[in-house]
């Protein structure tokens, strides 16, 4: 092994001393390996749909803590930590191997070549951090290619709602919810639906709305189908749901049950819930309350009905006994029952499925909430594609900006780096002051970096005095970058490029990155000359 590494080291020293002295013959393969690990290994491991659609039996799943999201976020954090660590490690090594003191022979554009190699290295280093999410989505979408993921996602939401509605503890409320839904549907179907589902999950999903503009009615529809015993419609949704799960190794817990059987079972469960002792008990309580309620009680109930806390002071999940909520439930008006239905369907905690059970031998019981969430990522959309393009361009451009660190590490002493950082920090308020003085216009602003670079040229090339040369060059370069970014931004605005289009994206970070590369190429000979100046 040692012989191999020595041979590799020697080969690079002889063929490319530039890469060798930057230690990139070790760190570039390391960065490539890093990309391979993340895009091959990590994405390969995480982008397995079955993993994210199930959870162990008996465990409720919270909407804010989905394993898929958590894992992706953890992957992103790990990617940043490792990329940052690798960059620091490289900087430490390259400073140890820093040869600039020796004034080894170098061509005029040698620094630029170093910069471009550094940009490649940093682009590889940053790629997993910037592209991980896009790569994951892309992989998932490829895996689900050919599937009607939007319909499957819709079906998963229906299943989740049925499971919530038909939970045994909701039997009493189901009576009222059905009445409220029917009343709304009868009164003003479109307004009611839009109102009740204003914050519905499917409404939050822009892509979903694009696919199905009528999705706002879906939540009510779940209840209507049950109320109308529309087993065909329910079976169709269950078939979609089953197709999504069956594709990844999930199987019904009750083998042999068709979608139609399951639909029938759901309708039966609904009817059984309405006839359950709890529902009966609720009806009795309600009748008794109607008979005995005094006018002052009704006024109190009306006030309670206007209270924003209405319906939330009694949580079945907390009290465990739905009867404990009867008192507050009795005070609800029909409109409050509508809100109650809304919040019930929106609740973040999804209990384990009881009626529509699919299981995976490894990943446990399929959770309709998780299935819907996963399918959301699997559904392609214009917005996701724009985000993806933007990520790719950001990763490609990131290297160009990060590689400026290479120039600093290669050329400057720690004291000079500190001076440059200080000057950059002071430049920010100075530019603000220019703005306050009304001098921050398109003519005056480019003059600042131009003047700095001209001063650097005079000092280095004409006067051959190094003092301040590095700071002037660095400051000029940094402000030029800010200037070029501003110019490109204005150009994009002037051209009125459509949002998310390639030209619009290209005039962002990539244009500034190319400007950076050109600027470094232009300054490279001057910087080389500065390196050779006495008393530097």
């Amino acid at each position, binding site marked *: 092994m040692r012989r191999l590494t020595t041979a590799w080291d020697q080969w690079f020293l002889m063929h490319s001393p530039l890469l060798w002295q930057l230690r990139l013959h070790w760190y570039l393969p390391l960065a490539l390996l890093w990309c391979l690990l993340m895009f091959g290994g990590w994405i390969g491991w995480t982008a397995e749909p079955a993993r994210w659609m199930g959870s162990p039996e008996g465990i409720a799943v919270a909407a804010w803590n989905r394993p898929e999201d958590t894992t992706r976020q953890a992957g992103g954090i790990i990617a940043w930590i490792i990329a940052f660590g690798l960059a620091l490690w490289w900087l430490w090594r390259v400073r140890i191997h820093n040869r600039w003191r*020796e004034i080894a022979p170098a061509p005029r554009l040698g620094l630029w070549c170093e910069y471009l190699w550094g940009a490649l290295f940093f682009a590889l280093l940053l790629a997993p951090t910037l592209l991980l999410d896009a790569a994951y989505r892309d992989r998932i979408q490829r895996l689900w290619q050919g599937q009607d993921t939007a319909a499957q996602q819709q079906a998963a939401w229906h299943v989740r709602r049925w499971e919530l509605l038909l939970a045994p503890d909701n039997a009493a409320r189901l009576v009222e919810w059905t009445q409220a839904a029917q009343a709304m549907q009868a009164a003003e179907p479109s307004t009611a639906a839009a109102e009740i589902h204003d914050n519905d999950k499917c409404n939050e999903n822009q892509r979903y709305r694009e696919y199905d503009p009528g999705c706002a009615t879906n939540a009510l529809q779940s209840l209507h189908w049950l109320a109308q015993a529309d087993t065909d419609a329910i079976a169709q949704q269950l078939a979609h749901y089953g197709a999504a799960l069956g594709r990844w190794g999930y199987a019904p817990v009750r083998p042999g049950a068709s979608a139609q059987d399951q639909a029938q079972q759901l309708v039966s469960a609904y009817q059984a819930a309405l006839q359950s002792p709890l529902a009966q008990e609720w009806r009795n309580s309600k009748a008794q309350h109607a008979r005995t309620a005094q006018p002052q009680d009704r006024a109190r109930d009306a006030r309670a009905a206007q209270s924003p806390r209405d319906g939330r002071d009694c949580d079945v999940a907390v009290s465990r006994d739905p009867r404990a909520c009867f008192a507050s439930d009795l005070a609800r008006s029909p409109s409050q029952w509508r809100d109650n239905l809304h919040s019930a369907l929106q609740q973040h905690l999804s209990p384990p499925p009881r009626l529509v059970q699919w299981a995976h031998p490894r990943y446990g019981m399929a959770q309709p909430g998780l299935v819907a969430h996963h399918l959301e990522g699997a559904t392609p959309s214009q917005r996701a594609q724009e985000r993806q393009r933007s990520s790719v361009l950001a990763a490609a451009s990131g290297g160009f900006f990060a590689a400026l660190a290479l120039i600093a590490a290669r050329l400057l002493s720690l004291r000079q780096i500190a001076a440059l950082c200080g000057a950059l920090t002071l430049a920010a308020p100075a530019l603000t002051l220019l703005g306050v003085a009304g001098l921050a216009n398109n003519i005056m602003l480019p003059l600042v970096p131009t003047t700095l670079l001209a001063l650097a040229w005079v000092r280095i090339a004409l006067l051959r005095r190094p003092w301040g040369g590095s700071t002037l060059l660095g400051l000029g370069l940094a402000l030029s970058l800010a200037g070029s970014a501003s110019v490109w931004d204005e150009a994009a605005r002037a051209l009125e490029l459509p949002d998310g289009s390639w030209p619009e994206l290209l005039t962002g970070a990539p244009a500034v990155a190319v400007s950076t590369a050109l600027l470094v190429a232009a300054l490279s000979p001057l910087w080389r000359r500065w390196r050779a*100046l006495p008393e530097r």
Partner: protein
Amino acid sequence: MENNATASAQPAPAHAPPWALATEHALGAGQWHGAWSTLLDAALPVPLSVQQQVLASLDAWDALPAQAPAAQRAALLHTALAAVRGAHHHTHSATLTATGRQARRVQGSGLVKRFRKGAFTLGPVDVQVAPGHILGLVGENGNGKTTLLRLLAADLAPDAGQIDWGATARDPYALRSQLAYIPQRPHPWGGRLMDHLQFAARSHGVVGEANRCLVELVIARLSLRPFRGHQWKQLSSGYKMRFELARALLTQPCVLLLDEPLANLDINAQQTLLSDLQSLARSPWRPMALVLSSQQLYEVEKVADAVLFLEHGHPRSVQERFAQMAGCAIEFETSWPEPILSAWLGQLPPHTHQVNGHTHIVSFQGDTSTADFLRAAVDAGLPLGYLRDITGSTRRLFVKD
């Protein structure tokens, strides 16, 4: 000395070049280090295949047990010598000298450098060093030796005067890559030592196997082979300086500038380094202009072709000062108490007497010679711990009147 080696040494032909004769002589005297040094110097400009033969001999030499017979060692040296001689015989001398960058005369005239802090001014100084020559810079601390070296290394810009390195100064970067300056405290080398040396050679155009061979020969020439696998921090000051020297040599500089190379070296290391510097500067194939500063006056005087004495930033002409000092000067140490010694010195011809710690320096104004002084001392029974004739030494310039 090993008698076996003398017996096995083959007489050199009459037309043998001086370096071969020197090698043969050292070989005959059993001076292995000297023999290898001369041979390795000669091996630097020869073709790659011959260098590989020399390195093979070196490897075999290193593999020999400590008690290996001298004849075996001599045989190995003879094999290498024959190969190098053959290469020199078959290759035109012009080809040999053209392998590296041509050394040039370095000349500075009217050099002045002013420092505002400390209000120190160096110069005006005139310096001239030809290839194959060594200029020694001497002077007390803070008198401008390092400043002058840094001016010559283009590390400082003169406030007045001109420096001609014999190379174009239009591209200052290219110029600096042709100058080798080794400061008194070199920067530490990170990573492997061999990497640094190979990179230095590679940067100056030596590639492939030739690179490896050249580096191996140079480190062998400077007796660094046992330290190839060491880390920088494991090296003593002397070996650090030698590695710096090896790296400088691999860049084939126009001029080699060394600041206090003898500092922190023991007496043996000083002698070895000076002898190496002398032979490297005067190499018949790649002579080099060499400037070194040092406090070791006597050691510098041994190897330098010229000595520049700096006092308060100004050069003092050694010849003129010596011309003013007509008589001889003697430095000595004795255990006699001051009154007795003064009484005895009072009996001697006219002179000045300075005391520097336990060292006495007597400078005679007339024709008194060192032999006369020594004779008087023996007659008086003066117990002498140390005595040195410094009549022609710059040491006299350090004596405060």
